């Protein structure tokens, strides 16, 4: 067995791109650099194998499971990933290889693991298909963005080789070898078009667990399936649970669509397909998720900043039990 000498600190295998003293942008929580950077305090442990940041005092990497301290000083390079579709984290150099087909994206237990407080546990899903990446947001707290444009829950955005893809405050770049780059004359990506169609949000749906959804003029569908505009992560919610209509005269109306576990207003279960007016004082509930309505005044000019500022360190949507 080869002799391996341990060094006192564990230099990361992949030196971070750019200036080593650069602080990773992060709105909250202790996210310093890994051991290798002596100018910062070593608060977290960066895994030498997969470059995932880990909290202080952990014994195993939360993504690849490496037992810290068991890797030799010189980590052999990981298998060559340059030909595989991947999302690259420019600040840490971390390469997140994508499976063909569907990949879940989130903070815990997902194919693409992004351990950051601004990323929801079930944040998004991305599919590698025909030289492109289809990106869908699953109702995350801090949003998903392709090429700077927000991806609304339930809508599918397309990312091309070289596009910036952002989940919460994690900025990634898509590397799709062999995929075509974004067509120069392409119109703005679909979500932006849809956003202009829908206008600014007129209200918000706020769940008791802190999750907030934007409600737009017209019909907003609500349920577990990702085809809904508002995706509930409640395991007791139905695939198509209910809808909220924001009418032109400012009235907001809630209708249950025949859900299994019911929609409740003031403790009373709604009959299916029977609309009920909602006010900001109404207490209502989808299955086990208590909710309230908040009417918005003037729409914010910078939707991203509003969402991030309002949701710092907030507990993102818990995993549905599936």
């Amino acid at each position, binding site marked *: 067995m080869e002799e391996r000498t341990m060094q006192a600190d564990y230099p990361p295998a992949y030196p971070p791109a750019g200036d080593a003293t650069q602080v990773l942008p992060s709105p909250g929580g202790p996210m310093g650099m890994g051991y290798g950077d002596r100018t910062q305090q070593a608060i977290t442990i960066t895994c030498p194998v997969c470059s995932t940041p880990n909290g202080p005092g952990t014994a195993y990497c939360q993504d690849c499971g490496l037992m810290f301290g*068991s890797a030799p000083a010189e980590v052999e390079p990981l298998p060559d990933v340059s030909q595989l579709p991947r999302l690259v984290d420019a600040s840490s150099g971390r390469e997140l290889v994508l499976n063909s087909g569907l990949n879940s994206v989130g903070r815990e237990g997902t194919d693409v693991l992004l351990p950051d407080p601004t990323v929801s546990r079930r944040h998004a899903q991305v599919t590698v298909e025909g030289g492109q990446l289809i990106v869908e947001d699953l109702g995350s707290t801090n949003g998903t963005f392709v090429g700077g444009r927000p991806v609304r829950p339930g809508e599918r955005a397309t990312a091309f080789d070289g596009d910036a893809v952002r989940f919460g405050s994690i900025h990634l770049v898509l590397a799709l070898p062999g995929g075509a780059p974004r067509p120069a004359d392409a119109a703005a990506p679909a979500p932006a078009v849809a956003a202009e169609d829908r206008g600014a949000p007129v209200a918000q749906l706020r769940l008791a667990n802190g999750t907030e959804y934007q409600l737009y003029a017209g019909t907003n569908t609500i349920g577990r399936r990702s085809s809904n505009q508002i995706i509930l992560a409640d395991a007791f919610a139905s695939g198509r649970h209910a809808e909220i209509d924001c009418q032109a005269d400012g009235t907001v109306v809630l209708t249950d669509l025949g859900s299994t576990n019911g929609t409740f207003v003031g403790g009373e279960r709604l009959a299916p397909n029977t609309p009920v007016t909602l006010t900001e004082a109404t207490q209502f509930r989808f299955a086990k998720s208590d909710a309230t309505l908040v009417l918005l005044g003037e729409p914010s000019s910078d939707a991203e900043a509003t969402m991030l500022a309002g949701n710092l360190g907030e507990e993102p949507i818990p995993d549905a039990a599936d």
Partner: protein
Amino acid sequence: MDSTRIIGPQSWGGVGEATQMTPAPGYPAPGGFDPARTAMAGSPNALALEMIPGNQFAHATRNSVEHAILQVDASGAGFGRRLPLNLCLVIDRSGSMEGEPLEYVKRACGHVVDLLDPNDILSVVTFEERVDIVMPARRVVNKALIKEHINRIQPGNTTNIYDGIVAGASQVASVRSEGYVNRVVVLTDGEPTSGVKDYTSIVGCAAEQRSRGITTTALGFGSDYNEELLAGLAKRGGGNYYYIARPELIPEVFRSELEQLLTIVAKNIRLRMILGKWVEVRQVYGQQPILGPRTVEVQLPDLERGASLRTLVEMSFGRRPAATYRVARVELTYDDCVTGAFNQRLEGDLVFNFATDGSLVSSGVNGTVQREIELAKASRNLERTMMGLKTQQLTAGAAMQDLQRTQMLLTQSGMQEQAAEVGQAIQGLRAGTGDVEKTLIGTMLDIDLGKRKG
């Protein structure tokens, strides 16, 4: 009192670490890890969780397949007040049960009444073509009166198992169930001849009840019942399967079932693996796991004091830099029936040393896991032997040889009861008496569950 124990990297040692290997020589131990520390004795928890990797080492330089056993152990459970039972006896009173069988059933039900106490709840349902609620769910206070109800059971005509099970489950469900061990015990001697008759619906009904915390045990009496249906009921229903060859054996089997129920220390047991990168679970032997994006979950049957369950998992590992890795976090949740505390949780880590030296992998095989893998194969062999016999593609002689090999394997693996069952099947083949399948299907169920009695 906080009975939740987290056994994870921050609290090295404890039950979860009992069979973990230490890091390979040449690698330093991370801060805090003491490989010499062994399992804690006299745990206050009803259950103990143990991870047994199939090999100390795994291949670092190539993709590979490895196994592991996740063992849930009730042998250390302390004694205390048991949870009360909420039990429904669902009895077939179709025409074929007339005479001795039904008389013994009534006697057996009487024994059950004797074994229960006023905190327990009992209901009795009979079915032939229709269902009769002989006794709706009530506390076992007036035992004489209850036995009188039972003695009035008369034989009828056809066999409507589905409605019987539905009625039994609804009797049990009529009581608020978290604080009880909830079980429906079904006894039948035949095929379903009326009502819903297909396997999928009947077994599906039991599976749904199980997801609501009501388990189902299936007792098959005589030689004419459908053993696949009853074994399926027991498996998806989370209860036991018994084959009762002769009427006079009925009371003993009821007593055995009651004994298990009265000593259950944990219910609603779920085992969950959260996988690390480059790890896939290919199968969980004998189980239908619920798969999430990086999670695998199985539901285990209620466990009585002194017994243990082994779940055998087959995983594929992607290659990676040589080091020690936790390939999965393991979480066990259960309701503790001794302390009455719900949603108890134990955690542990499944760890492998990934090495570039292939000879380390060849010599690092864990014998216990190897035997368990062979047992799993034995179970599949039993299934093939049974099918071969049924379709008459296999001669009795060839089947006996198969069974003898399996019997030896079971003995070596400490499954004495199952080895004896296979022995009986061999006798049955030799004597030319049938019903080999009825015994063996139960043996297969036990092997698949990996259940061992302390």
